[in-house]
């Protein structure tokens, strides 16, 4: 099967999957016996019959459930995710407003995790059992076990509040003029505006949340790399490579690492999807106005259109990332395509 046909088949399969997700989301919405009206018009206005009736009509709450579902799916197909009860804005606009902050943090965290995690993992794998290996292992275990909201608070307290060596919460220095919005990613917008002071400001605010959020992923990447290297280094082809007099560096980079990369692709893909789907705790601790915070607020206020829209977006992100991982896999290891 050619690569193109493989991708096409996978894409077709995602359609029923997404359809199923909308159905599940919608069923949950209708199983929870809560009146969304309070959230729509507020507690006090509930005593005002005109406002109540107007809201019921406006939000279609008087129509049968199946009809609401059909409308919902039809609207999605038209690219309309509905209007948030809470913000009164189209959910798509809300997601567009909040996604860039999350993307910025997710990309930065992933880069941090990969750039540090893979080399450290390789070193730990090569010097398996050494003091260095054990130190790295311990730090990664610590990193992976401490909850980010706790480490986030501690880091803010120590590095911002007490020492003042990093910026505080938020995405941008409070007293600095923001660059005009272009992509919503403050780093990109700063570059587009040619404002390097703003770029410095945006990057500096990424440091702490990246270390906290990326630290978790870093631990994961590091452990997987280390385990893969340890395993590959024991294989016969490595012994062969060594016995033909290849330099150790080439043995590791050209031979062992290449094979060790395969499981890493899956891990990194899933980790990235996880980072994108909203790092709720980290975003909360760092006042990061991203997707995670938006969805938490939506959930707390029973803002169903927003919850449904956000969940759908996350589902799509996972589907796309999984697709990319599988495609990459089939490129790296053609056996997968035939399997």
């Amino acid at each position: 099967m050619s690569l193109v046909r493989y991708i096409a088949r996978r894409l077709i399969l995602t359609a029923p999957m997404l359809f199923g997700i909308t159905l599940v989301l919608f069923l949950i919405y209708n199983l929870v016996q809560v009146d969304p009206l309070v959230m729509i018009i507020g507690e006090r206005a509930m005593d005002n019959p005109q406002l109540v009736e107007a809201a019921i009509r406006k939000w279609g709450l008087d129509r049968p459930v199946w009809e609401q579902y059909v409308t919902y799916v039809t609207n999605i197909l038209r690219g309309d995710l509905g209007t948030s009860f809470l913000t009164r804005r189209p959910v798509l606009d809300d997601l567009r407003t909040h996604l860039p902050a999350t993307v910025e943090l997710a990309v930065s965290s992933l880069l941090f995790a990969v750039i540090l995690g893979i080399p450290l993992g390789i070193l730990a794998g090569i010097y398996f059992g050494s003091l260095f290996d054990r130190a790295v292992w311990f730090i990664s275990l610590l990193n992976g076990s401490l909850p980010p909201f706790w480490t986030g608070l501690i880091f803010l307290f120590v590095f911002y509040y007490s020492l003042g060596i990093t910026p505080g919460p938020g995405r941008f220095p409070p007293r600095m003029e923001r660059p005009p919005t272009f992509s919503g990613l403050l780093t990109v917008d700063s570059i587009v505006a040619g404002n390097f002071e703003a770029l410095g400001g945006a990057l500096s605010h990424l440091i702490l949340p990246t270390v906290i959020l990326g630290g978790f992923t870093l631990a994961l990447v590091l452990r997987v790399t280390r385990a893969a290297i340890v395993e590959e280094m024991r294989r016969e082809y490595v012994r062969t490579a060594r016995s033909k007099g290849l330099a150790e560096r080439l043995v590791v980079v050209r031979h062992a690492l290449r094979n060790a990369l395969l499981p890493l692709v899956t891990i990194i893909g899933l980790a990235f999807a996880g980072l994108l789907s909203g790092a709720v705790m980290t975003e909360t601790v760092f006042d990061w106005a991203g997707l995670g915070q938006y969805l938490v607020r939506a959930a707390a206020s029973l803002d169903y259109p927003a919850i449904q829209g956000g969940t759908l977006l996350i589902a799509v992100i996972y589907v796309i990332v999984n697709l990319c991982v599988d495609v990459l896999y089939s490129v790296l290891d053609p056996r997968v395509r035939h399997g």
Partner: protein
Amino acid sequence: MRRLFALFLILALTIGFIAQAPVRAQSNALIVAGRFVDVITLDPGRAFETTNLIVHHATYETLLNINADDLSKIVPGLAESYSISEDGLEYTFVLNPNAKFASGNPVTAEDVRFSWTRLLNLKGNPSSYLTDFGFKSIEVVDERTVKVTLEAPQPAFASVVTAPALSVLEKAVVVAQGGTDAADADQTDAAKDWLDQNSAGSGPFILTRWSPNSEIVMVRNENYWRGPVALEGVTLRVTNDAASALQLVARGDADIALGVDADTAEQARNNADLKLNIGQTLNLLYLGISSSDYFQLPISDVRVRQAIANAIDYDGVIALTGGFAERPAAMLPLGIAGSDPSLRYTRNLDKAKALLAEAGYPNGFSMKLHIGGGSTAGVPREVIAAKVQADLAEVGIQVEIDQQTTANFLTAFRAQELPMVISAWTPDYLDATMWTAFFSKADSGVSRRLRMDEPKIAELADKIAAERDPEARAALLTEYVKAHVDAAIFIPLLQEQYIDVLRSNVEGYVFHPVYLTEFAGVRK
């Protein structure tokens, strides 16, 4: 391997360099850190939350004002004077001839008519400021005079006029952005998106940007008709908790942390760079006990309710807030004329036990106490509920706490299905009817939710609503408070205080119980 280590070194140096990047101190704008996540829109005709009050009070003006130093006095705003007709139905406002919008254009009677008619026809929640008060019509008498006609006399109307929802917008600007005051404005008005990001008012500041969940930016109105203010601008910066707001203020990244809790306030006390500003709000947290037979519970007996009121350790409840709270006698907060704190309950366990025995429950009884989420004066509902539970246990009343999400709680409360609740009440405007209209009637307000039916209280509430003489009104209100204390249906637990942490160089900051803040007089 050496190359790897070199890579790490470069990376570490880069991060170090970025961290040290100089941050330009921007002018003398005021940075205010706070929750501010409730904003849905900044269109004065549509917004009905809390943060928008701060923004609207800074960027728009109303015909009349109530200043924080005297809540019972209505002072001129855009209107230099107003008069009420003999029958109490017509209000005539005369605009100040100097009043100008930020654009430099004069504020005219037509702008007032347009703004109020648009508010009414947008049919959003804030339109209730007009509809709830029997608003009938508004007409332009001349360039500087508007006449408002009501369906029935409403002594509270002048204080309603101070609500930011009744701000005056510049008609020409709003119309240019797609705004309309037509009868179908709820379908056709298209100015919301623009008003979310800009302002069209006459206030001391101009709105320049709102980034949802992130920040709201206002700059000084250089054309302000009372003379430009000292601050170059105000930025409201969203923080998720008081601890992070305090950090920002302590490091000088913000100038004010708005509405922090008692623990945070204590930390700020120990910092020489910071000072506290304590503001008395009109927000009440109350215990509501149904007097209805519907629930088949002992609390339908007034003696049982009075026993509960005598059993609560009020000082202990206030101690939970770190002492940052007050307590009125009934659902009429301190600061409102007629609210007499001497009438309030104090803890008296012997009396509580005697009342229970008299009612036939010498060994107490069991029931549920329903609460939602959220917190008042920094104390979460469940903590207050646990305190009440412990207090009542001392007289033998076993309370089981049922906590739901706020939405579920309110749904059940509104369905009149909860016999005993702890909930909160915050005012939208400054008139006694903001409380008497909601805690008195069998068929409306919060009293309806508790199935309260006390004809005497309802009758007093009607008299209060109709009384125009301030002294006679205060006397009626004191009588109203007494009647409420006797009925023991709504028992105030706390009147919240608002704690703001300021950097010590911030001067002239005033807390306002409705608008929360006055930025016009702030200097730093």
